[in-house]
């Protein structure tokens, strides 16, 4: 199964990268942007047929390694098979 884990700075945690990107966007004339938070996406191939079980395992991976839950939030999506 194709799984995506998105990891991003928690709301309220200062994100220096997001802030720098926001000010660069503003300099480029995108004045409608008021806030940016920069995160990362992990694209995983996981064996299994049960989306519930696969999602639970992916959450465990996020908790254990992919996210530092002190400062980062995450969400997990199971991509629809083509």
């Amino acid at each position: 199964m194709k799984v995506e884990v998105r990891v991003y700075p928690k709301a309220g945690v200062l994100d220096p990268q997001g802030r720098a990107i926001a000010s660069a966007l503003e300099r480029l004339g995108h004045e409608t942007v008021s806030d940016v938070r920069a995160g990362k996406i992990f694209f995983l191939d996981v064996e299994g047929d049960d989306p519930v079980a696969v999602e639970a395992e992916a959450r465990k991976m996020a908790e254990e390694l992919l996210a530092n839950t002190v400062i980062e939030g995450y969400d997990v999506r199971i991509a629809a098979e083509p």
Partner: protein
Amino acid sequence: MSAAKPRFAIVVFPGSNCDRDCHHVATELLGCDAEYVWHRDTDLKGADVVILPGGFAYGDYLRAGALARFSPVMESVTRFAMDGGPVLGICNGFQVLLEAGLLPGAVRVNRGLRYVCKDVYMRVENASTAFTRLYEPGQVVQMPVGHGEGNYTAPPETLTELEYEAGVVFRYCDETGRVTDEANPNGSTAGIAGIANREGNVVGLMPHPDRCAEGLLGNDVGRKMFESAVAALAPA
């Protein structure tokens, strides 16, 4: 003659680059024994003090310290720390201690988004840990920093606990000891440069005491961190 001097273990991850500096301090400057312990080993070789040195363990992939904490050696380091053994994490070693949960909180990318490499001043906030007992409380010390991710933060309740339990060991300050925003090199919350666990046996800091441990380098104030550990172990 006094009892045998303590033995240091210097943990070496792939990408550690201050391991030899720490070894030099322990052996050449303090006259102690020191062993390198490779990250795949689990035997701390009878160490009395464990140092996690600076560098870029595992290339800092994912997050600084995030992969290093799963090294086999970290299970032994954790057990050693839980048993009260003195553990010092310097720079990247501090990041590993945070990721491993041996110290609370996390570091983010520096406020200015740049790698900062310069001398900073810090105030000694807790002079009773295993690695700071030879400093005076409130003493201002100068040490070099070199990091891109040293912007310390923690949940509000953790910060309160750190302040209340004297968990803050060093705070960035100016030459006179005033904690100001200008004196803060990375945006760290409350100017926090180093912290300790409640027992004071596990200490981590972003600045490099190993890079200012002998007069030849123009500054030897960092040597006292290593000497503190030796003094803490000496029979009273």
